């Protein structure tokens, strides 16, 4: 019996495609963020509130992934920014091919920010590179403080953690300090913004995105 050394990435195809997308985003100086969380943690609501508030002259587009329905795209389209739904038909994550396909009829010089709302799932999406600059993880105060310890992979890979639904803190047995400290245990440098659908933290979050966009435009933020 003989052995052949292979040493290749399993998700080689996805990786290649993600690298091609990344190159295109770099060329057109587009900021791309990939938002990941459990189902029900408030991804779509956060984005709704963000878009309502965001300067309408900003050239922002969104891709939103779900197993079924166009509900999220319908909700997000109300603010007037271009939105497309990706229906995965059962697949628990978005991959680079889905991104490429759904971007095909949006000219890359027509927008500056691409926000990708991944399928609600804390595990699988963390394995798939979509060509993004940054991953953002959302943890809501109606979940457990130990999510960062239970699902470390996504917290390690995310630049920013959004602690959502903080307006509910008085009503739920959730320690924001413990959740933040758990996130920092698995990722000491993680940035954290607290938000709620009532408006808490939204200006800070929009400023965070605009600072990242400025860094992409100036060439300071380059995706690896």
């Amino acid at each position, binding site marked *: 019996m*003989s052995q052949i*050394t292979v040493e290749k990435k399993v998700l*080689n195809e*996805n990786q290649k495609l993600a690298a091609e997308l990344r190159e295109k985003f770099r060329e057109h100086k587009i900021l791309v963020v990939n938002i990941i969380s459990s189902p029900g943690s408030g991804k779509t609501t956060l984005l709704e509130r963000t878009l309502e508030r965001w300067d309408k002259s900003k050239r922002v587009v969104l891709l939103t992934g779900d197993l079924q329905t166009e509900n999220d795209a319908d909700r997000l389209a109300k603010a007037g920014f271009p939105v497309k739904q990706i229906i995965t038909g059962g*697949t628990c994550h978005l991959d680079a091919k889905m991104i490429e396909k759904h971007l095909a009829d949006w000219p890359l010089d027509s927008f500056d920010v691409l926000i990708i709302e991944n399928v609600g799932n804390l595990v699988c999406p963390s394995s798939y590179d979509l060509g993004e600059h940054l991953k953002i993880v959302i943890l809501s105060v109606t979940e457990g403080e130990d999510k960062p310890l239970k699902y*470390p992979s996504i917290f*390690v890979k995310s630049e920013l953690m959004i602690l959502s639904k903080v307006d509910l803190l008085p009503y739920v047995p959730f320690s924001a300090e413990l959740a933040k400290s758990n996130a920092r245990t698995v990722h000491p440098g993680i940035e954290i913004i607290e938000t709620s659908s009532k408006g808490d933290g939204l200006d800070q979050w929009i400023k965070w995105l605009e600072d990242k966009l400025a860094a992409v435009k100036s060439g300071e933020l380059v995706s690896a």
Partner: protein
Amino acid sequence: MRFVPGVLMHELSIVSSVLDQLDELKKQHGGARFSKVGLRVGELSGVDVDCLRFGFECVVKDTDWETLALEIEQVSRRQRCPQCNAEFKAENWATACPLCGEAATITIAGEELQIAFVEVEE
């Protein structure tokens, strides 16, 4: 793309990606028969090893790959300290340097999701 109804977690698409690459490799080696594939799975890869084994069994069943054995090497997360160059295993996700206390250390292992090798039947 192979598809097994009812098994939808991403370990299934990972198994499919592995077998797609093995199909290709088999062609490159003149149709050689592979008896085993060795995968390397890091603890940060987001892949559950039990799901992966289960998905593998489901996907290879009743196919040409049915007799293919699966070996998985699990890789722990390891960090390097940029200050004192110490290398260490990140136990319980604690990534601060155990020697000098530096908080911002660099991940050097644990993100692997690789096909390491295949064994060829004589």
